[in-house]
C-alpha cells in the first residue's frame, strides 16, 4: 500500500509467500541510494537450545527433529554425530550408508518441494504449483512424484517422512532388509530420469543477468559429495574441522530479528546447494556432469537465481547416490553400535538441504545435556540475503512499488530460506525517502 509524505515514501507488501517461516523485509531507499535492507524474522522463538538442557542424550534426535518439519533428518544427523564424538564412537559400513541414504531422501524431498512448488511458479508466472498445474499438469505431477520418491526413502528407513523415528545415537532402532530397499528401486530409476528432465527444464528458464562474488562455504570430503561428514571449506581458502567452527563463524544478534546472524571473519557468506555444488563439483556423478555440459552450464554458478539449477542437480545426484548405496547394501548384524556414556563436548556439521548445520553439545557423566548450541543454515545466509538485495535493488528502483516488491520476494525465495529453522510469513516493506 503506497503511503506518501513529504519526506519518505513507504511501499509495503504484507507477506512474501512460498517460504518456510514468518518474517519481513524492509528496504529504505533515499533517491537512487539503497539505505537499509533488513530481513526481519518474526517467527516466534521456540528456545530449543534452552530446553534441551536437562534432557537425556537419547531424547535429542526426537527433540531436535521438531525444529524443522522440512529437514528433520538434518537436525537428527548433526545431533547424533556431535554426540558420537563425545562418546568416542565412529559409525561405519552399512549403518553409515543408511544414514547417507536417509539424508539423500531428505534432499530429494526438500529440493523437489522448493524447485517445483516454491520457486518454479516465479519463473512461469503463477501464484502456486496448484495454479501452475492447470496449464502444466505433466510438469507438476512429475515434481510431486519426485518429492514422493524422496519421502518413500525416508518412510522406509525412518517410519515416516516428517519427523522420522528410527535415528539414534550409534545407528538406528531398526535397519531394513535388503529386499525392502529393492522394493524402492523401480521408482528411484523413474525418479532419476525425471531428475535429468528437471535439470534440463530449469536450465531453460529465463534468468536475470546478475552475478556476484560469493564466499561459498560447504563441507568438503576427500572421497564423496559431502552429506554427513567433511571439513568446513570456504572458497576464500579456509579449511577447518567442525570443532573449530565457532572460532571462525560468529553469531550476533540484531534488534529487528528473532534469528541470529552468522558471519565469517566479519563478512557475509553463502551456504546451501549453490555453495555445495561449486565447492564440490568434481565429486558429481558422470551423468550429472554430462547433463550440465549438454545444457552449457558452467560451474561455478555465481547467480543466486541459479540456486534452482543447483538444487535440481543435487536431486539427480541424490537419486544416483541412493541407487548406488542400495545396490551394495547388506543388512548389518547390529542396527546400532553400542555406547559407553561419558562426559564431554562434541561438535558436528552436516549438510542440511539448505546448507551447513552446526551442533555442539556438552554432556555430563549421566548422559544428560548440560549445554546445546545450534546454528542453522538460514541464519548463516541471512546477512548474505540482505547484501544481495542491496545489490539487486538499484535495478528495481524504476519499477512500480508493487513490481519492485515482487522482485524482492523472488530474490529471497532463491535462497530457500527456512524461517522455521532460523525462525514464516515474510512481510515486505520498501520505504523510499526523497532526497529533498
Amino acid at each position, binding site marked *: 500500500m503506497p503511503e506518501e509524505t513529504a519526506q519518505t515514501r513507504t511501499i509495503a507488501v504484507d*507477506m*512474501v*509467500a*512460498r517460504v*518456510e*517461516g514468518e518474517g519481513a523485509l524492509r528496504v529504505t531507499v533515499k533517491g537512487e541510494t539503497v539505505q537499509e535492507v533488513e530481513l526481519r524474522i518474526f517467527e*516466534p*522463538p*521456540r*528456545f530449543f*537450545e*534452552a*530446553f534441551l*538442557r536437562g*534432557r*537425556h542424550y537419547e*531424547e535429542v534426535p*526426537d527433540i531436535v527433529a*521438531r*525444529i*524443522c*518439519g*522440512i529437514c*528433520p533428518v538434518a537436525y537428527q544427523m548433526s545431533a547424533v554425530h556431535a554426540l558420537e564424538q563425545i562418546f568416542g564412537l565412529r559409525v561405519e559400513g552399512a549403518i553409515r550408508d543408511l544414514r547417507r541414504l536417509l539424508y539423500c531422501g531428505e534432499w530429494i524431498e526438500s529440493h523437489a*518441494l522448493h524447485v517445483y*512448488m516454491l520457486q518454479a*511458479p516465479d519463473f512461469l508466472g503463477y*501464484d*502456486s504449483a*496448484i*495454479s501452475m*498445474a492447470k496449464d502444466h499438469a505433466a510438469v*507438476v*505431477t512429475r515434481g*510431486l*512424484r519426485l*518429492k*514422493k520418491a524422496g*519421502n518413500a526413502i525416508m518412510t522406509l528407513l*525412518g*517410519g*515416516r517422512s*516428517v*519427523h522420522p*523415528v528410527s535415528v*539414534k545415537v550409534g545407528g*538406528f*532402532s*531398526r535397519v531394513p532388509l535388503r529386499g525392502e530397499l529393492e522394493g524402492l528401486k523401480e521408482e528411484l530409476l523413474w525418479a532419476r530420469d525425471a531428475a535429468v528432465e528437471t535439470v534440463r527444464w530449469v536450465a531453460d528458464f529465463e534468468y536475470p543477468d546478475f552475478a556476484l562474488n560469493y564466499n561459498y562455504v560447504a563441507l568438503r570430503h576427500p572421497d564423496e559429495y559431502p552429506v554427513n561428514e567433511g571439513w568446513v571449506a570456504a572458497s576464500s581458502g579456509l579449511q577447518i574441522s567442525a570443532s573449530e567452527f565457532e572460532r571462525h563463524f560468529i553469531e*550476533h*544478534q*540484531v*534488534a529487528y530479528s*528473532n534469528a*541470529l546472524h552468522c558471519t565469517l571473519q566479519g563478512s557475509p557468506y553463502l551456504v546451501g546447494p549453490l555453495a555445495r555444488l561449486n565447492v564440490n563439483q568434481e565429486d558429481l556423478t558422470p551423468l550429472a556432469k554430462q547433463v550440465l555440459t549438454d545444457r552449457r552450464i558452467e560451474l561455478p554458478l555465481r547467480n543466486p537465481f541459479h540456486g534452482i539449477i543447483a538444487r535440481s542437480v543435487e536431486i539427480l545426484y541424490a537419486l544416483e547416490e541412493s541407487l548406488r548405496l542400495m545396490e551394495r547394501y547388506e543388512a548389518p548384524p547390529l*542396527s546400532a553400535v553400542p555406547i559407553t556414556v561419558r562426559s564431554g563436548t562434541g561438535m558436528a556439521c552436516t549438510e542440511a538441504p539448505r546448507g551447513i548445520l552446526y551442533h555442539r553439545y556438552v554432556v555430563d557423566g549421566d548422559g544428560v545435556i548440560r549445554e546445546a548450541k545450534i546454528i542453522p543454515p538460514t541464519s548463516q545466509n541471512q546477512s548474505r540475503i540482505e547484501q544481495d538485495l542491496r545489490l539487486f535493488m538499484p535495478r528495481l528502483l524504476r519499477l512500480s512499488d508493487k513490481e519492485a516488491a515482487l522482485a524482492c*520476494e523472488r530474490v529471497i525465495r532463491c535462497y530457500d530460506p*527456512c524461517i*522455521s529453522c532460523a525462525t*514464516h510469513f515474510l512481510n515486505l516493506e520498501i520505504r523510499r525517502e526523497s532526497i529533498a
Partner: protein
Amino acid sequence: MFNPDERQRPRLAVVKFASCDGCQLSILNLEEDLLALGRTLDIAYFPEASSDMRPGPYDIALVEGSITTAEDAHRILALRQQTKVLITIGACATAGGIQALRNWADVESFKRAVYPSPEYIQSLSTSTPISEHVHVDFELWGCPIDKGQLLRVITDLVVGVQPRLPADSVCLECKRRGNVCVLVAKGLPCLGPVTRTGCGAICPGMGRDCYGCFGPSEGARKGPGLPPNTTSLAGHFHSDLQLIPIEVMRRFRGINGAVSPFRAESDIWEKKP
C-alpha cells in the same frame, strides 16, 4: 456442514503460529491428492504454498502452531471471527507442542541462554494450545499429523458428515500390525498404552518405544472421553523397568507434555525423591 447446493467451493485457509512447518508439509505431502484438494476447495489463504492470499471469511481454517506471543494471541481471535470450522493440526496447535517445555521454566533465563541481547525478544512465558484462546471445532493430533486423517476429516466436512477419528490407544493398532510388544518383550518405556492411535504404531514397528506424538488416548479402562491410566504405566516404568523418577518425568514431559493427563503425571514424578 456446507450447503451442497452451493456452487461455491468451500474456502480454505491454512494458518501458522509457533511450529516447525511439519504439519503444513503433511498437506503438501498429499501429492496427487493435493491437486484434488485444490479442485474441491478454494485455497484462499495458504502462504507456504501460494502467493495468492485472500482475506476471509473462510469455511475451513487449518491452524498449525501454538500461541507464544501477545501478537499471535490477537491474531487467533481475528481468525476465529472469520472462520466457520476451525481445526487445529498437530501437537503444537492442539497441545502447545514441544515448545511448551518453557511452561515449566523461567523464560527470561531461556532468552538469556539463546540470545545475547534478550531484551529484543518478545515472547510470552507460556506456549499454549489454540483451544485455550478460542473455540476449536475439531482437533487433529500428531507430531506430525497423519495425512490420511487430515484427508478424511476434510472429506467428511465437504460432504457434510460430522468428522470422527478413533481415540483408542496405539496398542490396538500395534496388535493389528502384528508388532512384537516392545514394552513387554524388550522392557522399553513405551507410551503406546496411553497414547492416541493415528500414527500406525510406527515406533514399535521400528523396534522402539512410542514417545507420545499423538497425545493422550481416551477410553482405555476408564471409559470413553476419559483419560488413560498414566498412573499405572508410570508405576510400571518405575518399579518394573527401574526408571528413576526423573526419567519417568521426562517420558511424560515431551511433545505433548503440556496436556493434562501427561502434565499431571510428569508433575507427580518431578516431586518424587
